């Protein structure tokens, strides 16, 4: 099973988009591996995510899991790939679909809570410039991320609350949008309708 999660990479003050691809193979020895030029802090993400999953009572699929950070020719640095990897693994193991206009960003702690991570403002700016409407960030970064106009910022407290949100059990309400330039009402209504549809689909899927 293949899941794609969107995140970013920083090069100087330029921000590039990164696809975090997670593949859970049907066979093979159980294990988790990251490729795509990760540096030490990204490679260690493997252990943080695995431990956080354990401590939150979540189970990783007992098969070979490969994670690719594409494009594979750019060095990836920083601890913020924990959340996109975790979100992808939740999606793959619990069979939940992720919103496709969202970016994920944040460092995981061993207990599953999210730590303050540098660079969330750059994430929101990138989201705005490239047509993403939602970002998922650690709650202590929410204010920094929300200072970009017109982006819905989901402040994630810990891994369990992310699972509940994605599963449609308890929705994290996005941080208030600062101010929007063009036709704010229509935009807001559109987003909330989408959110509602998405949530009800989730609930429906759960009940059936």
């Amino acid at each position, binding site marked *: 099973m293949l899941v794609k999660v969107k995140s970013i990479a920083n090069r100087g*003050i330029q921000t590039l988009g990164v696809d975090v691809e997670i593949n859970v193979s049907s066979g093979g020895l159980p294990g988790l591996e990251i490729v795509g030029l990760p540096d030490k802090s990204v490679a260690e993400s493997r252990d943080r995510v695995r431990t956080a999953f354990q401590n939150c009572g979540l189970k990783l699929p007992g098969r070979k899991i490969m994670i690719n950070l594409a494009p594979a020719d750019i060095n990836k640095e920083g601890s913020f790939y924990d959340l996109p990897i975790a979100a992808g693994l939740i999606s793959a193991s619990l069979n939940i679909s992720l919103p496709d206009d969202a970016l994920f960003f944040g460092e995981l702690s061993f207990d599953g809570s999210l730590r303050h991570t*540098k660079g969330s403002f750059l994430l929101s700016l990138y989201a705005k410039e490239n047509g993403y409407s939602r970002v998922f960030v650690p709650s202590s970064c929410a204010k920094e991320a*929300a200072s970009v106009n017109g982006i819905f910022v989901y402040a994630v407290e810990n891994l369990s609350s992310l699972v509940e949100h994605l599963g449609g059990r308890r929705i994290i309400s996005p941080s208030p949008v600062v101010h929007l330039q063009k036709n704010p009402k229509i935009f807001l209504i559109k987003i909330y309708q989408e959110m509602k549809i998405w949530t009800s689909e989730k609930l429906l899927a759960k009940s059936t």
Partner: protein
Amino acid sequence: MDIGEIIGQEYVKRALEICAAGGHNLIMVGPPGSGKTMLAKALVSILPDLSEEESIEVTKIYSLVGKIPPNCGLLRKRPFRNPHHTISYAGMIGGGSNPLPGEITLAHRGVLFMDEFSEFTRPVLESLRQPLESGKITVSRSRCSVDFPSKFMLIASSNPCPCGHYGDPKKECTCSENKIRNYQAKLSGPILDRIDLHVNVLPVDKNRLFSSNRSVEINSKYILDRVLKAHEIQSKRFEGEGIFFNCDMSNSQIEKYCNLKSDSKKLLLQAVEKFSLSTRAYFKIMKVARTIADINGENDVEADHIAEAVQYRSKIFLQ
């Protein structure tokens, strides 16, 4: 700290006001204990907050290096960076295999205060040339090359000689001529030429320390109001030009916005000849004069604005 707390030094306070209003660079030279560091720190209190556009630029940089505290949104205060003189080359201009910004980028749209300017190592000082001129720095490594913005206001302070008393009217300098020359040679011509205002800071008259007659009316709020007015004039003038302050004007913009009358032109040419100033210094004087006119709220650059601007180029202990 309020600028009104500093006793005397009205001349330097005026220079700081001009810096704050037009984004100019300043070097203060004077004996130890004359208040150079205090004056520089008081500059923060007369700087207006960042505009929204500037704030986004600054927040971007601080977000990248993780210097935004938790639960904090856009940065509003102008950055004030005060690196120690033992700073490395990479620490100053930025570096690393995946380059990170250095002090000059962290001081973007704010103040870079370099205390003991002549104690910095030569490569660090010379590396300031490109950013001072173009407002950005290119950090090139084998893997990649990145541009960082670095439009900062340089405030430097230095002693005139190793003992610090060369040119002091009260105390005798004990340095040999050779020592003074070596000390001052650290500040190369090209660097000094790029600094708009040069001022001498003289020791405060001891009698004034105890007098109750301090200038209460010159406090930070009073100066800040005038700086704000000057900023307003400039933002109106440069609408659509892509710059914010007088210090960013290109030569063609100087021609356009600093229309000199014949008497001011004559005065400026005389000064350039007398002090054998470079062409760059000539344009810098025009920019400073423009700022002085803005502080006074005047449309044209008059002869007395030029005269004041020339003062800041002509007198320094440095030979």
